[in-house]
């Protein structure tokens, strides 16, 4: 047991209706990067929450350096040398970097010393950061640095990282990997959670794969092919989407010089965005989270209005119209946030179907709602998109992420849009549902609609889109056909080409 840092034995945790972790055992050695691989819902989050003291296991033991390890709360875990960087950052927007760091420490030093320590550590690991900045004004990559530095200041023996690269550009990913390798060299162990196979093969020494709460295998990723890893992770085969030969038609959506001020304190302004999408074509828009994706969707859906001439639907200038009019003309959207934006959590699926389909599906009569028709439409979506739900009367929040996403996308597709704009169509959705959604988008394009897919998942964008552009701080890069792009080029596009963090890192 000499070379084991943390040992998990038979960890089991059940929630009503699901067993999140079933008898999971594996060891983490000192100074290794250990991958925890699995699909969404495989039980990765629950497992790390147990290690971090946020959740108590129903059964099983953990030992840290040979001694029993039962953290009652995160504070105890931190005291034992276990630190964690969350996927959804546990940061406070209105507070400064230094205050955020102090909140994550047991005994923070005096403010002046802390500021110095932050500067020291951030330089030592190539993660530049200004202690006095307000966190709400930082980019996603910089926010992650705050989290990492908060952990590093406590000299952890085990650093847990939950999907750290989902918010980073390829260049930022490189910087992060350098930092992690440096930590490994210094003897720190890292538990690295991800579902991205190539990353794991490039970075990790060992990988433990979870499926449906159970450990499938522990292996050495460098000796395993990506395909083998994928099969262990997913278990069953599923249909990969097939592109169909499509005819490019007339321009259906045209955006010209679209600029909009930032909504609220911490939003992103849109700066002079222009692009065209033809009938039968899918335009992919990539970019790191928080670079104007939500704002672009809102400007296209009509939630935020611009100058009339900024957005054209075929021959009509729609920039100044609200969502209802745009929808009537055939411009439909599906926003990223399923609960609360695309759908109202506490309303039934029937009511949520009515939410965007009232006009196009003719669901009202002199202001009165034709509930029977609305229900029929909801049933049609449920059937056509294989939405798993007891009935259309179920509240939206009772559905799983994947099922609700199928419902939301289905609701728009079944309204036969001329132009469809979707943001993060498969975020947090299981692989089978994601494949179904992508296929539906391809089918819709084949039937002659123009589609814009905004996503942070590059693999997805490469798979479905014909052309690609990236958002950076509210600007859209030049758009290129997908076949001509290399990963480096994409990274430069996402990084905004000019100011690149790489420069700092290599300096």
């Amino acid at each position, binding site marked *: 047991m000499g070379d084991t840092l943390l040992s998990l034995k038979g960890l089991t945790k059940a929630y009503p209706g699901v067993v999140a972790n079933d008898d999971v055992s594996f060891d983490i050695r000192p100074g290794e990067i250990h991958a925890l691989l699995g699909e969404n819902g495989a039980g990765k989050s629950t497992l790390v929450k147990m290690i971090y003291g946020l959740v*108590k296991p*129903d059964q099983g033991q953990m030992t840290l350096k040979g001694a029993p390890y039962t953290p009652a709360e995160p504070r105890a875990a931190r005291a034992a040398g276990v630190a964690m960087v969350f996927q959804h950052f546990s940061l406070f927007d209105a507070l400064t970097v230094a205050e955020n760091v102090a909140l994550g420490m047991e005994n923070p030093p005096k403010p002046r010393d802390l500021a110095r320590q932050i500067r020291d550590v951030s330089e030592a690991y190539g993660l530049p950061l200004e202690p006095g900045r307000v966190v709400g004004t930082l980019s996603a990559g910089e926010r992650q640095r705050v989290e990492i530095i908060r952990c590093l200041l406590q000299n952890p023996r085990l650093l847990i990282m939950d999907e750290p690269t989902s918010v980073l550009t390829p260049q930022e990913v490189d910087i992060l990997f350098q930092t992690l390798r440096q930590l490994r060299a210094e003897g720190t162990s890292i538990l690295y959670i991800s579902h991205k196979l190539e990353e794991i093969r490039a970075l990790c020494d060992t990988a433990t794969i979870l499926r449906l709460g159970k450990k499938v295998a522990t292996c050495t990723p460098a000796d395993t092919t990506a395909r083998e890893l994928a099969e262990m992770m997913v278990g069953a085969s599923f249909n990969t989407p097939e592109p169909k030969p499509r005819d490019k038609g007339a321009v259906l959506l045209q955006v010209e010089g679209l600029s909009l001020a930032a909504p609220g304190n911490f939003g992103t302004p849109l700066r002079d965005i222009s692009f065209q999408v033809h009938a039968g074509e899918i335009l992919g828009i990539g970019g790191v989270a928080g670079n104007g994706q939500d704002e672009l969707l809102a400007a296209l859906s009509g939630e935020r209005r611009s100058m009339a001439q900024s957005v054209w639907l075929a021959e009509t200038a729609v920039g100044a119209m609200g969502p209802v009019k745009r929808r009537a003309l055939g411009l439909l959207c599906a*926003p990223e946030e399923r609960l609360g*934006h695309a*759908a*109202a959590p*506490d309303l039934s699926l029937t009511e949520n179907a009515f*939410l965007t389909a009232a006009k196009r599906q003719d669901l009202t009569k002199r202001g*009165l709602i034709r509930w029977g028709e609305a229900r029929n439409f909801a049933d049609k979506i449920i059937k056509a998109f294989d939405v798993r739900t007891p009935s259309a009367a179920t509240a939206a929040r009772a559905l799983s992420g994947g099922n609700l996403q199928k419902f939301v996308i289905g609701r728009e597709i079944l309204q036969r849009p001329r132009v469809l704009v979707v943001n993060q169509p498969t975020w947090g959705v299981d692989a089978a549902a994601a494949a179904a959604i992508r296929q539906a988008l391809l089918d819709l394009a084949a039937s002659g609609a123009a589609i814009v897919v905004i996503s942070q998942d590059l693999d997805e964008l490469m798979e479905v889109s014909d052309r690609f552009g990236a958002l950076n701080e509210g600007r859209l890069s030049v758009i290129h056909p997908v076949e001509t792009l290399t990963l480096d080029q994409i990274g430069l596009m996402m990084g905004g080409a000019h100011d690149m963090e790489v420069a700092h890192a290599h300096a």
Partner: protein
Amino acid sequence: MIRLEKRPQPSKAWIWSAPIVAVLLTMIVGGLMFMALGSDPFEAIRTIFWDPMFHPQFAAYSRPQLLVKAGPLILIAIGLSIGFRAGIWNIGAEGQYIIGAVCGAAAGLAFYPSDSIWIFPLMVLCGILGGWVWAMIPALLKVKFGTNEILVSLMLVYVAQNVLNSVASGLLRNPEGMGFPGSRNFKQWDAAHNSELLMNTGMHWGVVAAFIAVLGAYVLMSQHILGFQIRLSGEAPRAARFAGVNPSRIIVFCLGLAGALAGAAGLFEATGPAGQITTTFNAGYGFTAIIVAFLGRLHPVGILLAGLLMALTYIGGELAQLMLGLPGASIQLFQGMLLFFLLAVDVFTNYRLALTGKETV
């Protein structure tokens, strides 16, 4: 350890049984309170909940009072509930009620002593307008500047009370009233009197209006697209904007409707049961209606029942004061308790109790 666990969707059973459980809990704790005040708890509860309807001696008087008291409560609560559904917290109904009554009464008194049949409709119309205008102040400030409607509407209650004090002893004072504050008595002026429509039922035009409001609100909220938009705005404001709902329109509509109904209630009260504009004609209905709205689950039918129940506690409270010497204020506390218990019990609509092991939260 017991902990709360979120239900996948709201429990239908609890939505309807929570108010009943809350009433029972209030009876138990209220009974203990009455015991502490030196009364027999069972007698006190019976006096409040049973005697107003069935007491051999007093019921003949108090039975009609049920509708008299419930009418304005229901009318105001219906208006408030629609706003609450949209997340618009108009808590200044008391002010809208006062201004409605003052405006309506002023419009009528301008034509004194005409006996035209148009006097009363004119007064009702002006009452509605008065309440509407008073509610438009917080509505427009919220739309234009994003000013918090809770504080503005509440501040306007105090302003309205000052207006009332001023007109009751000034502009609208009865010239034949020997200098006492208070307007002419509408009960002695047939054209302006909101009289009882059916003998000994307490039914007056305000009660009729309340029933119409219940019906109208039911259709609006469950069948009309505007009602859907109102609910959507309250449940998920971002989804509402995505659906194309104009938030300003919802704010103006909800506050305006609540103000209009409260104004009408004020006018009906001043020309009917109260009989005149005095500095104290408003009996705090505007505030009690908030309790009624919540007790009725912001649902029109629920509000109808809650209004009747709350009216019962008013009358019962008066009886208890008369017969048991219980302080009048205890009934106010009793009503507050009812709201608290409802809010507490309400948690079970969305959460259930779960027994867990040694879980820490």
